């Protein structure tokens, strides 16, 4: 009799807790994968495709599924470091060389107004119309270089963003090490 009671109590407990869990899983359902979002937040959102995926989100998904973390040149070594910290993986050297931040510039004398670069730009940073001169909105340009290959007259070039007073940073204080004067032998 006792054993039956115990089984009944356990069964009742199981049913109640199961119902609670079921309710919680419906009520507190997490939309999407939070890990992918975290990875995507670290990626630089240039949408350049240098990682081999069509945009930062697909690469974030690929990383979450086990792809390498060192395929993003715009993110740089620091990006790899942060991804490694997030995912608990080992830091690897970058798969390509790291470039300084740059933006695209259209040579407006050469541009023929073909609109091919406008279609290629992932962030709509190029303004222009068919047979009209095009130009790049510098603030929006991510420097992804996707507009370079489609241009039939090669009028787009990349320019490194120079240091100016607005983006200048204080340098890390360096301790100067001076060579001590050699002591003369007595």
């Amino acid at each position, binding site marked *: 009799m006792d054993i039956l009671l115990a089984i009944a109590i356990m069964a009742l407990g199981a049913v109640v807790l199961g119902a609670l869990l079921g309710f919680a899983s419906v009520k507190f359902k997490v939309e999407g994968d939070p890990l992918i979002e975290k990875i995507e937040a670290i990626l*630089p959102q240039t949408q350049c495709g240098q990682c081999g995926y069509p945009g930062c989100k697909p690469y974030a998904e690929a990383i979450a599924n086990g792809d390498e973390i060192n395929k993003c040149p715009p993110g740089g070594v620091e990006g790899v470091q942060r991804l490694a910290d997030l995912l608990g993986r080992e830091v690897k050297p970058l798969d390509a060389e790291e470039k300084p931040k740059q933006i695209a510039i259209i040579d407006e004398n050469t541009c023929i107004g073909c609109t091919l670069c406008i279609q290629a730009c992932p962030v709509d940073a190029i303004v222009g119309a068919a047979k009209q001169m095009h130009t790049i909105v510098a603030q*929006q340009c*991510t420097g992804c270089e996707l507009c370079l290959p489609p241009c039939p007259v090669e009028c787009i070039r990349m320019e490194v963003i120079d240091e100016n*007073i607005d983006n200048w940073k204080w340098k890390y204080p360096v*301790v100067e090490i001076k060579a001590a004067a050699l002591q003369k032998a007595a």
Partner: protein
Amino acid sequence: MLMNLFKFKGGVKPPTNKTQSVGLPIAIAPLPSKLVVPLHQSIGGMPRPVVQAGDKVLKGQLIGEADGRISAAVHAPTSGTVVDVAMHIQPHPSGLDALCVVIEPDGKDEWIDRQPLDYAAMSPEQVREHLQQSGVVGLGGAVFPTHGKLTASKTVPMEEMVINGAECEPFITCDDLLMRERAEEVVRGIGIFRDLLRPKKVLIGIEDNKPEAAAAMRAAVAAVGEDFAVIQVPTLYPAGGAKQLIRVLTGKEVPAAKRSTDLGVQCFNVATAYTAWRAIAHGEPVVSRLVTVTGNVHDPRNYEVLIGTPMDELLKLARPHPDTDGIIMGGPMMGFLVPDVHVPVIKATNCLIAHDDRLFPPKAPEMPCIRCGACAQACPHELQPFEMYWFSRAKNFGKTQEYNIFDCIECGCCSFVCPSRIPLVQYFRFAKSEIWAREREKNAADQAKTRFEFKQLREEREKADKAEKLAKAAAAQAAKKAAEAAAAAAVPADASAEATPSASGPAPAQTSAVPAVDAEKAAKMATIEAAMARAKAQREAVQPKNTENLTSEQQRAASDIEARRVAAHLIEPEPATPAGEKTE
């Protein structure tokens, strides 16, 4: 008036070194050989240049137009010719260039038409607008456009207005001399601010090492007939920090990430009040300021200097000692060694100190932090500099923010007291600018992401729209065809109905339904055939027709060419030629 003063925590007492430069009255600095006026001299938007090389300008003429609400206009400091609008090295720790207007003075120093204004008859909005157009900015060092601080908060009543004449930084005496010699105009300028903000009390704080300035201000307040309180505060660096002076005079502590206006307090520098008065009552925009020239020089004193004067020319007036090896802009606590001695004086330049190793001995090397806590005791903002130092050094910027690094005013008290001579402020500046850079990058990335997602959405929508349009067009076409076919089918049906009048009404409809499908198909086939025929006709129409109507000579030339091409095996011989002949 007896008043209960409050204290702020921390602070240091460096040697003041002020007596050297107060002995002589303010001198007007002579016209320099050229003036390099940077356009971006205040916080906020970068003013747009409105002059070009070759333009003649008068003293006080607008050369840079304010861009946006938080921005202040820039004016020509003297009459002359604009030589250039170009990049020049700035009095900035980076030593980088920025856009400047270079003016060659004509020596006449001829003013524009100056219009004194009666501000009592103007609306507050007009007064603020005029101050912005006159380039009035905070001359205490932060160069925040003054008009931006002159709007009273709608939610918090304005309790006190604090006027900062503390001038706590060593060596600097320009505000001291200004109050001694031009107190009345300062007081009238404070009157303008008072009328715009309508505070309950106006408190003028002056450190007690400037009794002459305090006396002059008291006399001026009495002479003008105002009820401002001139209060001497204990000499303790950094009592001249806005938050510190507010604390000392009102007992209110401005919390992190809040502004003094949230507590009903607003703070202005005495020199700002003076320039505001000159702008309103004399129509003179800010084209000059008082600069203390001191340090390793024979005759330290205060000069009224045109904005844009090269620093080396100004320093020469005070006859520097030959061993001078640099110029510090600002005081010894918060100033910096300018990257080049030719950089211009700007609105933020309150002091030039000729640098040499006797006054500023080279710092002994940095030693490890011993966690003595002296920096925390000296910090006037009650921060923990040693913790911020560890995290800045380790580039752990998130942690530095947890220790409120952005409340640090970079006063330098912590570096001053550090027994290990650690340049703490440099670490904090490094951490702050890294955090700002990251913030900028994050914003850019977020923006890029939204724009990318929007582009994808747009492309998808366009695709869907196009597909829908095509489907609609196809449906319309099909409906039209069906209608035509039905009409075609209806004609024979009608004919048959006529032939057999005994048949019932719905019968023809029933019979026509079956042939309608066939008719539709037939119609489709017919249209396809018609289209093909049209295409064929078109193709034939565009065939080259230059082979017709040839003269016999041309015909012969053409056949010669053909023969040669055949001989060279360039083309297959004409199909008319029998294959056997080719091998021969």
